[in-house]
């Protein structure tokens, strides 16, 4: 995609800079590839105050998941004529995320779109921001209830739990055998929620009684740790049938390990992953089925909600309805309990459709 090529170009420039101009920080200003719109937009916003100013605060600015989401946000911003300031830490750490909320508040942005690294850690400052008249839109990972105006949920949590169980069941030969979970960081809120719901589904629904969840390991959303963990799973459970990885980093690592170990026909991998990452593994049969929602759409919806909140079109109260063109089949969204809006069900990717997606 566009962003990517830009990223690469900048990357290469800076690579050259690294090699030849050693570590002069001047390179910084020339290649702000992490926050393409940052320096510019904050300058602009200072000047043209009229334009709608939105602060985008992901868990960390390195994860491509949030880069993908940003493409959607930018799309929306173009339409609603708003400027986006992306800020955020390099690592997904609660204590690193907090200062940026304070700064955005100081900068009097009109709205903050945030994926909370820790729902409670960010709550006090978000409340302060709301008190200062800033509309807070949570997306992807929710801040504590009451610390946002609207939370745009990518998917109904319980839905994901069931999906994960279903896919595992589908991939395990006649829905029986050992399965294991490879998650993100042990402290990751979303993953833990999904895993719990999946466990509940497995234990409650008789349909899954053949599946035997043997272990849950954590890859910290780092490729190397995830790889190690996946390898360990293969060794430790010789007759493992399915690895379920509800994280884009984990599922990729797991798929790589399995196909590298030439065990694609005995061990399957499923979970949540980017189509672009998983295409080869769908094809070589390592990961015939997995899921995700359209991350760009998620960002787009979040931006639209932010705009509507600022314009006053919606308040974020339960039961309100609004529609975003191009989403939800142009049917209106309804704000549910605790101001939650659900993007829609997770996509199910398999060899029939995976090539139609590019994110």
């Amino acid at each position, binding site marked *: 995609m566009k962003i990517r090529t830009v*990223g*690469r170009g900048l990357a290469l420039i800076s*690579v050259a800079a*690294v090699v030849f101009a050693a570590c002069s920080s001047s*390179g910084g200003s020339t290649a702000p*590839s992490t926050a393409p719109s940052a320096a510019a937009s904050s300058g602009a916003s200072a000047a043209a105050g009229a334009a709608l100013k939105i602060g985008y605060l992901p868990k960390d600015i*390195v994860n491509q998941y949030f880069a993908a989401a940003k493409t959607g946000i930018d799309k929306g911003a173009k339409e609603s004529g708003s400027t986006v300031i992306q800020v955020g830490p390099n690592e997904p750490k609660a204590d690193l995320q907090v200062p940026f909320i304070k700064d955005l508040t100081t900068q009097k942005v009109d709205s903050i779109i945030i994926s909370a690294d820790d729902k409670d850690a960010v709550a006090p400052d978000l409340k302060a921001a709301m008190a200062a008249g800033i509309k807070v839109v949570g997306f992807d990972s929710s801040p504590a209830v009451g610390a946002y105006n609207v939370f745009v949920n990518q998917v109904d949590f319980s839905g994901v739990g069931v999906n994960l169980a279903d896919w595992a069941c589908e991939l395990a030969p006649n829905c029986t055998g050992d399965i294991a979970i490879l998650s993100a960081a042990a402290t990751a809120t979303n993953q833990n929620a999904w895993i719990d719901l999946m466990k509940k589904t497995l234990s409650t629904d008789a349909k899954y009684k053949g599946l035997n969840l043997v272990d849950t390991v954590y890859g910290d959303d780092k*490729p190397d740790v995830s790889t190690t963990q996946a390898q360990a799973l293969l060794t430790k459970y010789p007759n493992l049938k399915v690895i379920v990885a509800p994280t884009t980093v984990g599922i990729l690592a797991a798929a790589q390990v399995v196909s590298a170990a030439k065990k694609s026909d005995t061990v399957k991998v499923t979970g949540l992953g980017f189509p672009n990452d998983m295409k080869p593994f769908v094809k070589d049969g390592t990961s015939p089925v997995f899921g995700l929602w359209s991350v760009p759409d998620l960002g787009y919806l979040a931006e639209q909600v932010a705009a509507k909140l600022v314009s006053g079109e919606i308040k974020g109260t339960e039961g309100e309805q609004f529609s975003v063109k191009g989403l939800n089949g142009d049917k209106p969204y309804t704000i549910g309990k605790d101001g939650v809006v659900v993007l829609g069900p997770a996509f199910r990717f398999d060899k029939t459709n995976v090539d139609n997606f590019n994110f």
Partner: protein
Amino acid sequence: MTDAGVTATLDVPRDRSAWLGVVARQRELSLVAIMVVLGALVSIAAPQFLTVDNISQVAVLASIVAVAAVGEALVVITRNVDLSVEAMMGLVAYCVAVSLENHMFGAPGAILFGVGIGLVLGMINGFIVTILRVPAIVATLGTLSIFRGVDYLVAGSHQVPRSGLPPGFTDAAHNDIFGIPIFVFIAVVVVVVGSVLLRWTTFGRQFYAVGSNPEAAAILGIPSRLVVFVAFALCGLMAGIAGVMYVIEFGTINGTSAGGYTLQVVAAVVVGGVGIFGGTGTLAGAALGALFLGFIANALILIGLSQFWLQAIYGLVILVAVSADAYILRRLQRAASLNRSR
């Protein structure tokens, strides 16, 4: 070179300090011994532990740390330390990955490119330490965040997926040369070459001389600054190789790749019996240290101990290793001094 051991003159009565002497001088052997015992015990609890697959997997992952640890050992032997290893690895890894993704070079070119960057980064460290006279620990603490910062800067939120790398490139990790995984092969080659240079060349010996007694080295007219500079440069080079191996093994590379490796590398060096005050230790020891840590990590998982224990156990291993060294050294010096009384 032998480890920080002491053996008194031949007329020592062969007392209890004798076996200590052996242990101290044969750190490599004792590490191997411990690993064998540990392996035996673990395989009782988890039979899969001693399978070829598992062992080669552990060895492959460990060899990445091992290569970096060899570089670190070179620096530590000269009585310095390099905390920026993980940042150098990460930066190299991303540069290699992204250059391949954009077909800047073929695989060999990219590998050379990466190793070259590592060398340059190492030379920057060497320059700051020897020319700007910044204490190694401070200098590399600084470059740790500088190099990592540049990495973020270069990478942004871009992640090079394994699919972005030329097929075959990433399989290398699992190819093998007469049964030995190629990574292990690389690690062994690095250790052997390095050890030969350290052991059998005058310049190599100067690494130990500088670390063992800087004043005496100066009096002998040994170019301490040059030696230290070279040590850092080589450390960078090794980090470069390790970075390339990281790409090959893990494929998926972004700005945070190789985070947290410095701890592992330094731990490996310490566990491998390289004295933090310089002058002692072997590259083989450092490499074995890396393997040892890898074994422990793997064993923990296999015997079903939650991975939360890993950190704690790493910590204990470091403490035990360093305490043992000190204890043995003291015992032997006491023995030597007693032996002195006629």
